[in-house]
């Protein structure tokens, strides 16, 4: 069954309240969100395998802390789309603003267009696939998970990286502290292939390079002049 929330008249509060409490008891499997008009906090904190279609642009934190739900935004989104996501899938058909997928613990975020600054900051296990390019300082302090960039990456990619791995198809303007380019292994090709398929992109995995942590910042070292 399908249910529609028209945000031109209704409120985000009613939408989220239904997704949190009404949904589980209902037979609704698909929720349509009409006229989102850039509203913030659309479909946040969902914990149910439901298909949510947002028909327009979203504001900040669309799909924040998502678990299980599949959320598709037919437009652009503001800051922190799918922030702290645990599981499920968030797909942005357009562009994403800053901090897309910030501190995500799991699930998949697909941005079909470009993502702005700090995409994947502090990510903790989420997989992010960006069809276009990402802005500066992406994957800053990223701890776990994968960030696939089909376009180019800005300045300071992967600064202070922990164990997250970044794959880039295009040009990297510069790498951040402790991030280094590494040779692709068979496991990397398989991973990129799997992530591209999940996202619905048809690039050849051999076009990607791997960026990961050099692990030189993992321990204090006075002689290395680390400016902590």
């Amino acid at each position, binding site marked *: 069954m399908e249910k529609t929330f028209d945000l031109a008249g209704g409120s985000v509060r009613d939408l*989220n309240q239904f997704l949190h409490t009404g949904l589980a008891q209902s037979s609704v499997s698909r929720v349509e969100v009409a006229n989102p008009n850039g509203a*913030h*906090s659309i479909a946040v904190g969902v914990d149910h395998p439901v298909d949510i279609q947002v028909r327009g642009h979203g504001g900040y934190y669309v799909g924040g802390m998502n678990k299980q739900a599949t959320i598709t935004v037919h437009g652009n989104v503001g*800051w922190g789309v799918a922030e702290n996501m*645990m599981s499920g899938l968030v797909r942005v058909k357009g562009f994403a603003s800053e901090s897309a997928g*910030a*501190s995500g613990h799991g699930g998949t975020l697909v941005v079909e267009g470009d993502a702005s600054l700090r995409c994947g900051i502090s990510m903790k296990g989420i997989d992010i696939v960006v069809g276009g390019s990402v802005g500066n300082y992406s994957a800053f302090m990223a701890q776990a998970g994968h960030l696939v960039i089909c376009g180019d990456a800005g300045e300071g990619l992967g600064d202070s990286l922990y164990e997250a791995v970044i794959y880039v198809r295009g040009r990297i303007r510069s790498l951040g502290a402790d991030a280094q380019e590494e040779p692709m292994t068979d496991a990397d090709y398989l991973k990129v292939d799997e992530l591209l398929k999940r996202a619905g992109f048809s690039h050849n995995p051999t076009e990607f390079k791997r960026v990961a942590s050099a692990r030189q910042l993992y*321990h204090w070292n006075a002689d290395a002049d680390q400016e902590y």
Partner: protein
Amino acid sequence: MNKPLEHAVHAPKRVSREESAGFDRRTIDYIQNAAAHGLYEIRGLGAKRRVPHFDDLVFLGASVTRYPLEGYREKCHTKTVLGTRFAKKPVELAIPITFAGMSFGSLSARVKEALGRAASELGTSTTTGDGGMTQEERRSSKTLVYQCLPSRYGFNPDDLRKADAIEVVVGQGAKPGGGGMLLGQKINPRVAKMRTLPEGIDQRSACRHPDWTGPDDLVIKIQELREITDWQVPIYVKVGATRVYNDVKLAVHAGADVVVVDGMQGGTAATQTAFIEHVGIPTLAALRQAVEALEEMDMRGKVQLVISGGIRTGADVAKALAMGADAVSVGQGALFAMGCNHDSYWQDGAWHSAEAGYEQLGTAPGFCHHCHTGRCPVGITTQDPLLELRLDPARGAAHLKNYFKTMNMELTTLARACGKSNVHHLEREDLVALTLEAAAMAKLPLAGTNWIPGAGGL
């Protein structure tokens, strides 16, 4: 020829001990330590230098014009409600003294359990700290505040919905502008897993939130947290004391139910000494600025104020409340109550000396600030499976309970002496300052005068 004076020849050899004010022994030690290691000192606890504090204030007590209450008999209420502005379920506490946020990682799970047990018996709250919510703490603590920190370690919607309140941490009094640190010795497998980090690394937590930057974003972030939790629980905003007046106004504007202000004496488990001693303003000054900000916005009593940073005694609590706080948070005091810096620890029904443990750290009971090492001699700030046994959760909880009960009794004693049947009725008019600095910072008259330095000008 000059002969030495008779008494000079026979006097014992003179040892010159003229100490320099600028290059005193502490400074010499600092320089030689820096020269030897090429790395600044990282340590635990809070600022050690003397700053104007609640000790510099006294209560006026009752007089001909003020009628006191009977100290031991007449009721004096301590009930405290936090988060009445927007939350459907405000936090109700039996006393205005809460446990400050301290992380699992910096503290052992057993200590978190002790804190939770004590808080539940006292009717007050504990706060998670960086590093996520442990089930030990959730199980034992009736009222648990869940922090949303820049690192977002272990942060997840299930725990968020289990929380009784959410605290967005912007900063901490010990290090406003700095992120957390947890050295490798403390990143054991469980801590590493909760934080999604490799075991044993020297970890730095982020100092900025990943998904918002300024006051306008904070409005939206708070709204998101409310949406996720269906507007049920209060949202606190915690700031380290720096530009308190502005920060409190911005937090209120952003929609906070409660503002927590942590002064420079606030503790930490691991921070650079330079940071601890040289960034932030004293709790006393911070509290007055916070109260002024709330008053100017006509938000006193609507947005509650929690103050922390060096709160030690019932007198400190009473003075904080009189100056306008609704509650206080205690961190370091709780550690001392559980035996921090004690010369011995209690294990298997007997006392054991902890002196060797302090010696290994290059310190002694009374001087220890070595929480960052993870080798706590009394088993509090450690993740070592043997050391942590030195703290028995039941005994730790009993000590915490005694300490908080004592403070609460002191608080009501002082309130009754000022003629108040409710500790929240204590007021600024009940206080005067003993020093010029305290008078100026707290904007209270210097004792015996009507003079408030700076009032009317500046």
